[in-house]
């Protein structure tokens, strides 16, 4: 009987030769058993990786934090720079803008008055033909 140290010190070729001489046979279903064990280990590790509720909450919180950071830099509008440094120029621009709005309003009102006049003409014609 060889000791463990002797076996460890023996070369692989020599061990193979001893096994042949002693007529040691590999069990028939060894390959199948190894495959089953590997598959079971893979399934077990996959089950462990499934995220639980706590994991989802962590994902959600991290996502919200990342979105808030991105929004701060890209989405929330930055404050633009004033076009005028001089309040007098700014005042004149605002006055000009109001004048423009007033003119546009006036155009709209004039169009409405013209339409009203046309309707009155149609009414008059209808009344005259009655």
């Amino acid at each position, binding site marked *: 009987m060889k000791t463990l140290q002797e076996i460890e010190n023996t070369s692989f070729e020599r061990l193979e030769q001893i096994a042949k001489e002693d007529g040691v046979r590999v069990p028939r279903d060894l390959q199948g058993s190894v495959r089953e064990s590997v598959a079971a280990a893979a399934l077990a590790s996959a089950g462990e990786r499934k995220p639980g509720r706590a994991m989802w909450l962590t*994902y*959600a919180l*991290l*996502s*919200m934090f*990342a*979105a*808030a950071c*991105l*929004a701060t830099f890209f*989405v*929330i*509008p*930055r*404050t*633009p*720079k*004033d*076009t*005028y440094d001089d*309040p*007098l120029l*700014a*005042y*004149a*621009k*605002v*006055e*000009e*803008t*109001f*004048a*423009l*709005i*007033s003119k*546009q*309003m*006036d*155009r*709209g*009102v004039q*169009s409405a008055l013209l339409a009203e006049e046309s309707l009155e003409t149609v009414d008059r014609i209808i009344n005259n033909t009655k």
Partner: protein
Amino acid sequence: MKRFILIALAALFGAGAFAQDGKSIYNKYSEAENVSAVYISPAMFKLMKKVPDINLEGESVNFGPIIKTLTGMYIISSENPAINEDLKKDVDRFIRRGTYEMLMEAKDNGEVMRMYTMGSEKTVTGFVMMSYEQEECNFICINGEMPREALEELIN
């Protein structure tokens, strides 16, 4: 990781929806080609309160009292047909998302002009005017605490 990216993007787009206002429209288009842009900040409006009333040449109306109630103004005038359609869509989206009411609409030979106000019966806190035609698009957004009666009297 995929879930993390998806949730982050969804939250980002959600935040983007809230960011649609006069300022974001100004930021988006003010640097574009053939666009002139004017921004007057609340700080500048505070300074303007100290300015004596100015009467523009040919203008009989005094806009001074109402100007002193304003807090911000954004103007975008675009002569860039490539962006006019997008600008119009963004303004429409901004109006739909806010609590603006249409004050007036006029259409003439393909030109559309709309005015909107926001606020209460007595006070206008937001005024938007948009005029659009294929070659030109103008957007004016004014914020403040304008007495409605005075504003309507002024622009009529």
